[in-house]
């Protein structure tokens, strides 16, 4: 019990004193996971919308692959991204392994299927006839897609939350492709793992609490937008 109490005390202390290392780690976590989420939103909403609005042979198989992708283990993603970015790998020439960019790539790979899957479900739950109604109102195909995305905006917020939640909390891929290099590619999760393995439970708990707080605050904002009273 003392251990936890000490951890909380330490976390509070680190936060109020604005410990530069903790701040840097927190900022990098936000930057990496935020960028990865943005990329996944662009890719995932586009892919989800295309799959939802078109019909093609084998659509069910594609949907089931997307749904499987939503449960992609970060460690597996880390492994594949490492192999691809390895010096002798297909993308080795980019020389981005063990950089925050590699972490963004890995996290985007994790988040994209999550965002795609939820976007797909969000678009599919709109009434089918709505598309016809929008076209009948004189919309071009592009205008129709834009209106449909706007109509599905509330469930799409869930996609942002799930995508961000998935990557801010993952550790396997980040540690594998980022290397947990102090002052360079160390983020909240990788630092927590390291501090725990060193037996520095107070720092680990502090980092854990900051991670939780961060996830909570971001989801609070998104939830607020989602649940906000609609126009009267």
């Amino acid at each position, binding site marked *: 019990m003392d251990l936890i109490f000490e951890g909380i005390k330490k976390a509070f202390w680190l936060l109020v004193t604005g410990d530069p290392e903790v701040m840097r780690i927190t900022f990098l976590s936000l930057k990496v996971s935020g960028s990865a989420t943005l990329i996944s939103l662009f890719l995932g909403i586009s892919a989800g919308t295309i799959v939802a609005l078109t019909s093609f042979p084998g659509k069910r198989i594609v949907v089931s692959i997307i749904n499987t992708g939503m449960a992609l283990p970060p460690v597996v993603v880390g492994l594949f991204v490492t192999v691809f970015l390895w010096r002798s790998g297909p993308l080795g020439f980019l020389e981005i392994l063990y950089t925050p960019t590699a972490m963004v790539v890995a996290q985007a790979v994790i988040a994209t299927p999550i965002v795609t899957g939820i976007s797909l479900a969000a678009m599919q739950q709109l009434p089918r*006839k709505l598309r016809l109604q929008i076209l*009948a*109102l*004189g919309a071009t195909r592009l205008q129709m897609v834009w209106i449909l995305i706007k109509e599905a*905006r509330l469930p799409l917020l869930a996609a942002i939350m799930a995508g961000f939640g998935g990557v801010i909390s993952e550790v396997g891929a980040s540690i594998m492709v980022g290397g947990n290099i102090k002052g360079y590619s160390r983020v909240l999760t990788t630092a927590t793992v390291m501090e725990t393995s060193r037996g520095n439970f107070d720092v680990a708990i502090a980092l854990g609490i900051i991670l939780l707080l961060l996830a909570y605050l971001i989801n609070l904002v998104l939830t607020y937008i989602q649940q906000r009273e*609609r126009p009267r």
Partner: protein
Amino acid sequence: MSSDRPVLETRDLRVVRGGVEVLDISEFAVHEGEVVCVVGPNGAGKTTLLQALCCLLRPSRGEIVFRGQRIETEYPVLQYRRRVAMVFQEALLFDSTVYNNVASGLKLRGLHGSKVRESVEEQMERFGIAHLRDRSARKLSGGEAQRTSLARAFAIKPEIIFLDEPFASLDQPSRESLMDDLQRILKRTNTAAFFATHDRIEALRLANRIAVMDEGTILQVGTPAEVMNHPANEFVASFVGVETILHGIVIEQNGGSFIANVSTTRVEAVGDANVGEHVLLCVRPENVVLATRRQDEGVSSRNVYQGKVKKVIPMGPYFKVQLDCGFPITSYVTAHSLEGMSIQEGKTLTASFKATAVHVIRNPQSMEQSLDQSINKGH
């Protein structure tokens, strides 16, 4: 009302889905300011017809001609869609305010500012939803939502409006008042309209012309009076509310009228038919008079039959009484008459109808052929 030049014409329109032909219209046209009601049971192909005419689905064959120009080859689909409008059974509003919904069609056309505002306000006023301007579309009643949907469609000043059972999911009072408003607005704006409905009363109220559909084809086109009083075949007859349809064989021809055998009894009808010919005799329930005693004397009706009441069905303001006179016959009576004659199941009554009240469908077997010809000739 209608001028000579059609706003929209279609020729040889076919839609095939999953290998099955779901629509087959040889020829049809709608004129300026004309309201055409497409009636038929569920699954008759009304929605498919409207969506095909609105270019929301691609027909397997045929052409749609808008003001003399063939759509797709001579006139772009998008431009055509921007000159027409469609309202569905569900209001299908956007998750925004009533104002934004009504404005949406105009905004999609790149319009903004006072032009949009004026048009939107005019339509909201017309449809009685001006007070709901800032309300979320999600918080509207069914009637209010459908009014918003109609206002949105009329805001773009369509040259043709397609209405796919817009009142089907509304309660009776909302339906009545909205139908009144729609009728008034269609007349004032002189907009051509295609109105699909399975409710013949709605069709009778709104239509300049009625097209009766079943199984993807148009069975009869005509004015409401033509379709109601001279149904082209048994299906149309039963759909437009002819309750008594008797199959008979002509046994006597008296120049202008004839007598047909219906099971074991004789029915007299005005019309031409040859002895030995098979005919369908249609009698509307409102033309059948019921009485408690046989009243041959002083009654101009030639067709008087005695029968037992099989069923009494309440129909709101009146009752439907089904009699078995050796063949089934149906009549409508008011609650007052029902009570006065103490009509109940099993009671013996006399039913009579005039020979002129019988609509004759000749040669029912070859009806399909003659119908095709009459539709092809025009309407």
